[in-house]
């Protein structure tokens, strides 16, 4: 019955004769690695491309870097449905706000819109988001809005299930005052390390650099990712 499918995380309410595999009854999740780095003049954001339903990879070429406005992006981790819905809602709100103001919105505004929604619906949502972009007032900024609805501005931030494996790398290799190319290289390496260790992250590495001029997207295919182990 429809009632049995409630809150997909409930245990086996289905008999063994049902022809919907167990993993299809689970919610689609972006078990993920996402990150964002500030540099002078903009931000670099990066994400892996794997979306899983349980143990099955539903989409191996996902784009988790979602545009919210011309110079503001968000990196999504957590439930695919929840983050897509929240990102859509914030895109609308920010667009409306920007039209009212008749000028491009601030990254801080976008981040706070995310935070308000994630905090208000914290029990219902499973969404960890990094908001990053460029605006005229403060240049490149990265704000992290993890599950629960906290907001904090950081020069570099990682998120998602794969982030646990790269905190050490991030802390030891990040230096303030990097250039855009150095940031892109730093992100590529970090994502490659996380994708290597985390089962829920993988596929290709998607990167984007946001500056006053605009947006530059890059994709690093699986075989082009830097290798670290010798085995």
């Amino acid at each position, binding site marked *: *019955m*429809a*009632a049995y*499918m*409630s*809150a*997909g995380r409930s245990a086996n309410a289905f*008999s063994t*004769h*049902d*022809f*919907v*595999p167990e993993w*299809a009854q689970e*919610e*689609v999740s972006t078990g993920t690695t996402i990150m964002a780095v500030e540099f002078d003049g903009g931000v670099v954001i990066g994400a892996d491309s794997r*979306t899983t*339903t349980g143990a*099955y990879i*539903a*989409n191996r*070429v*996902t784009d988790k870097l979602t545009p919210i406005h011309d110079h503001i992006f968000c990196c999504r981790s957590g*439930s*695919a*449905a929840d983050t*897509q*819905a929240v990102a859509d809602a914030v895109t609308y709100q920010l667009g409306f706000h920007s039209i009212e103001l008749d000028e491009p919105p601030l990254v801080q505004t976008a981040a706070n819109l995310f935070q308000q929604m994630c905090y208000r619906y914290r029990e*219902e949502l499973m969404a960890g988001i990094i908001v990053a972009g460029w605006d005229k007032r403060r240049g490149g900024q990265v704000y992290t809005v993890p599950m629960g609805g906290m907001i904090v501005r950081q020069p570099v931030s990682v998120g998602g299930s794969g982030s646990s494996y790269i905190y050490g790398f991030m802390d030891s290799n990040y230096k303030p005052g990097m250039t855009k190319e150095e940031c892109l290289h730093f992100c590529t390496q970090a994502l490659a390390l996380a994708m290597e260790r985390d089962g829920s992250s993988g596929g290709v590495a998607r990167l984007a650099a946001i500056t006053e001029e605009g947006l530059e997207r890059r994709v690093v295919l699986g075989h082009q990712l830097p290798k670290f182990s010798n085995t």
Partner: protein
Amino acid sequence: MALSNVVETPASGFNFENVSRNVALEGLLEGGHTKAPKPMKTGTTIAGVVCKDGVVLGADTRATSGEVVADKMCAKIHYISPNMYCCGAGTAADTEKTTDLLSSNLTIFSMNSGRNPRVVMAVNILQDMLFRYRGQIGASLILGGVDCTGNHLYTVGPYGSIDKVPYLAMGSGDLAALGILEDRFKPNMELEEAKELVRDAIHSGIMSDLGSGNNIDICVITKQGVDYIRPYQESEYKDKRQRRYKYRPGTTSILTEKIVPLELEVVQETVQRMDTA
């Protein structure tokens, strides 16, 4: 907002009237020795491929209710609009009704705006609705169509997540079908090649999955129009009915006939003029 709906979007909150009704019915049936009927699920293989000239969708035709095949010639490719079709996996009723509702709303939109709806619009409406119901509507849909912006293929999950991809398989037989697609898909394929690929993908789903079977339906959507081939290929395991199960009129003899005219009289008559100017 600007969209008029056939059925009013419900007020905030969820409507679980049918759940309480079902629970009450279950309670009544538990007392006896009958069980409530299991919902019909389309344990299924559905697949879609974007090719050079359009989109090719394919599906098997088996609908199961528990271990029994409830429908051997089920239509899983649903009409959405003249330029869009949708394959559905999951609970049969949910996929039917969701696609019906979408189709009605888009028809109204077409009439209001004078345009053919875009695939991305249909996907957004589906996503809104399925997200609102938090996964209670068990519908996994593959939506494919051709519009002024190109050929598109989307998948919408039961929780309301969407993915835009060039090729796709869903349902219980999707792992088998996806193997075929991963092996032989190339971007910008010719139409005939794409049809064969989808047929092979569904066929492999039918062979390797118990929940899929019987015939293969193919739907080809191009700028010129839609070619809904049902069935594209019939199962070689069809059996023949032993005898005719339709009875001629007159098989049951009529013993007596009694006609009772109902006497009605007009009590009140009102005339309302319609202003058509």
